[in-house]
């Protein structure tokens, strides 16, 4: 098994994130910086959340498994709230940075729009949280065994990978919606983002029952995606024009060839 599962799961979990990064982020140094800084903010939030959970476990009765489970749920909720708090902090930081960037340019225009920043920071949160949630599972998938000797579902790895993919998408969408909501002071949108994040996190507690967690999470992902799409300024026209890109491609080819230096013939 080993390598097959490892590569399969890695590509499932990070294929989309990798393509998005390559196509929309990697080309622009400023976006890369925002991506890395965003990942750092997420990490700090995780550190604080784990600290809170760790201390609470240390202080509590460790034999009481119900209490420990409760603490885990509490830790997950704290982690979600902290993540969103850090997303807000990051938003504030980017706003400040944006002003600074605007003063540096000649025309007084910021080289990056808020929507771009929202998308990139969302992606950064998604990538780093995806990495943290799946990397140890991937490491164990290299070995010869599969999950199931204690009667667990053998679809553990693949479910984890799909869950991670959903998380990457979700964070990207949440980023887009969250920043937009902050900018427009639409508090109900903020609340909805936090609530959907909490629900997603809570759904993973159903986890040995994979269909119960994975399907709702994907429903949330798709709806968040649609919302984010329209928030980012997308419309049906965009899709239609994109679907008909063959024509535009033709145009492009034409333009491209028109730009060609006249050849000898």
């Amino acid at each position, binding site marked *: 098994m080993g390598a097959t599962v490892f590569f399969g799961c890695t590509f499932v979990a990070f294929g989309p994130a990798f*393509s998005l990064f390559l*196509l929309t982020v990697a080309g622009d140094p400023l976006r890369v910086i925002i991506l890395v800084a965003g990942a750092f903010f997420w990490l700090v939030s995780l550190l604080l959340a784990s600290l809170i959970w760790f201390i609470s476990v240390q202080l509590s009765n460790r034999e009481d498994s119900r209490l420990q489970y409760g603490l885990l749920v509490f830790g997950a909720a704290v982690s979600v709230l902290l993540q969103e708090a850090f997303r807000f902090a990051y938003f504030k930081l980017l706003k400040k940075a944006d002003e600074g960037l605007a003063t540096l340019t000649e025309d007084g225009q910021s080289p990056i729009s808020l929507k771009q920043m929202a998308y990139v920071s969302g992606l950064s949160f998604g990538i780093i949280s995806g990495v943290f949630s799946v990397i140890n599972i991937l490491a*164990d998938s290299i070995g010869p*065994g*599969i999950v199931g000797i204690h009667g667990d579902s053998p679809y553990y790895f693949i479910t984890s990978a799909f869950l991670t993919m959903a998380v990457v998408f979700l964070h990207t969408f949440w980023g*887009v919606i969250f920043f937009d909501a902050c900018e427009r002071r639409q508090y109900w949108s903020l609340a909805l983002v936090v609530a959907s994040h909490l629900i997603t996190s809570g759904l993973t507690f159903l986890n040995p029952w994979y269909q119960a967690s994975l399907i709702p999470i994907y429903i949330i992902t798709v709806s968040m995606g649609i919302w984010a799409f329209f928030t980012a300024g997308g419309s049906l026209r965009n899709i239609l024009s994109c679907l008909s890109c063959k024509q535009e491609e033709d145009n492009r080819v034409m333009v491209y060839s028109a730009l060609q230096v006249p050849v000898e013939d």
Partner: protein
Amino acid sequence: MAAGAGWRMGAGERGRRGAETLFRGLLFCVLGCGFCWGNSVERKIYIPLNKTAPCVRLLNATHQIGCQSSMNGDTGVIHVVEKAQDLKWVLTDGPHPPYMVLLDGELFTRELMLQLKGSSRISGLAVAISKPSPAQGFSPGLKCPNDGFGVYSNDYGPQYAHCNWTAWNPLGNGLAYEDFNFPIFLLEDANETQVIKQCYQDHNLPQNGSVPEYPLCAMQLFAHMHAVTNTVTCMRRSSLQTAFSLNPEEVCDALSDYNVWSTLKPINTSSKINPLDEVIIVATRIDSHSFFWNVAPGAESAVASFVTHLAAAEALHKVPDVQMLPRNIMFTFFQGETFDYIGSSRMVYDMKMDKFPIRLDNIHSFLELSQVALRNSSVLWVHTDPVSRRNDSIQPQVETLVEALINSSVGANVTLQEVGQSQPLPPSSFQRFLRAKSIPGVVLADHRTSFQNRYYQSMYDTAENILMKYPEGLSPEETLDYVTDTAKSLAEVATVVARALYQLAGGTGNTSAIQADPRTVSRMLYGFLIKTNNSWFQSIIKQDLKGLLGDELPQHYIAVTTLVNTTQLVQYVLANLTGTVVNFTKEECLNPEKTPNPEKEMYVYTWVQGSRDPNSTSRVPFCVQSTVHLTKAASPAFELKQWGSTEYSTWTESRWKDIRARIFLIASKELEDMVQLPFLLDLMLQPTVFTLAGTTDSALPSLQEDEACWRIPLFQASLL
């Protein structure tokens, strides 16, 4: 330094330092938890087998023996073989090779192992220990133990060489001396064996004629060995490493440890004894071996004999006029005798090289206790060397020796009988002394020709083998002091030996007062065969050596680490039984050279922790004065760097990094395809993703939507 810096640190700086420490501590916690086992994903996949013993590679001058796995462990689908017919599935029929065979202990025979050895469909073997022990007997040792390293050769009694006269261990199948290229583990815990069998029944059992379906239960065994070919090769490689590498990675180590010896009358070990002094040597071996690493209970092959020896030593030390005897007696416990006489060959070498306080010429006679516990109608056989008895000066001395023994057995419940004068000596340390010099000597054994022991050098040579039985429901303390029939009969042998030694040493007093204590014998048998962590052993060892006592079955393998548990315990028991308590303080006891004691050169002082005071939890330590010494039991071949020696033992043990075993499920091709399928789906999904990315970017000035659309097919093409 840190504290000094702290004094001059400002408040703010101190705070920052505090936060940094906190952060570091936290990071450490997070990383630490990540590294420790108990990773929940791993626990979902694997069940580690903790109570196992591997078969490891040993090497001598010409061969490698034992087992090894590939570097990353060998994996195979488990198949339980309980009958010989089950093997057909593994060797020909089963559709999922390679197989990991879980073999019933009863079937662990040479014929079956050779069948498995020749098959490429086997990736490893786990042997379940059979309870009760196999009725037909089991000995993985050789039919002719230590052949070629004893006294008989083409130059010395050629008719006896290579066990021509008799095969001492007819049940020996030589499995431990075969080389297997797959790992073999012993499952010591019946519960773990049951877990494996359950996994096999749940997943691997063919359902009404059809082949079993995935996921299948599999096992992985890790036992990769670093050394290959033989001792010559591996020692050369090791020495090259140590000579040229800053970071030497040795590949094998010589089997070595220490011999334990003491004398009845104290001698000065820093000089030689008077050439005219005569010493009687009493000897036994204290090590055993089996197919598996560090599984060597050796009840009959070693423990019963050295316990008898210890009891005889105690009985002799109690005799009042013992210090007046004209001859001295040396109690010698040889380590590593199983591996071509490591201990005795080294002592003989040291005596020859004048590195030992006693010379070969000082030896008056030699008495060895071979296997003595399984006597048929209490007959103890007296073996002598027919070749040296042809010598006119030796013959009468041997006769005196035998006579003394037979005299001492009068009235005791032991009958001593001499075997035929044309019969050679059984494998014994005495043979190494005969190689150097003709010395009168006898070997006492419970067998006339071939061994009584049906489990010689096997994992079944346990307390049950020497018929040690305890009544049900005894507490550990009661078990320790319970006198079994085995203990009684061994005490009788010890009494006979002690009385004979007293006479041989020139004692003229009444020997009937010399009596070995059956209670001491039973305590020793309990300590060396069942549990070393008992109250008696606790009270006689040094305080800092508590770690050598354990609750598991004691093992008597020589190993490569110096001072194995057996050696140290024999040392402390001997000191306790033959020494005297002296009124020294701890400082005086630990540094006797600083005290004005004239006898300090003659004695060894040990500060032992004493027994637990019944009224409190503390112990009352005291100082023991004894003549118990340790000398190196490392083969002279390594001293002389003659790694291809045929004169001395050349056994080495390979090194390894990782030895462990685990079971888990392996997936079918279909599940693998299932994982691959989403990957392909993912590729199909990507246009959607990019559409979204592209349209999201429509708000972004730098990336046109059409551009994104346009790149997708390209990217996908590159992925495919």
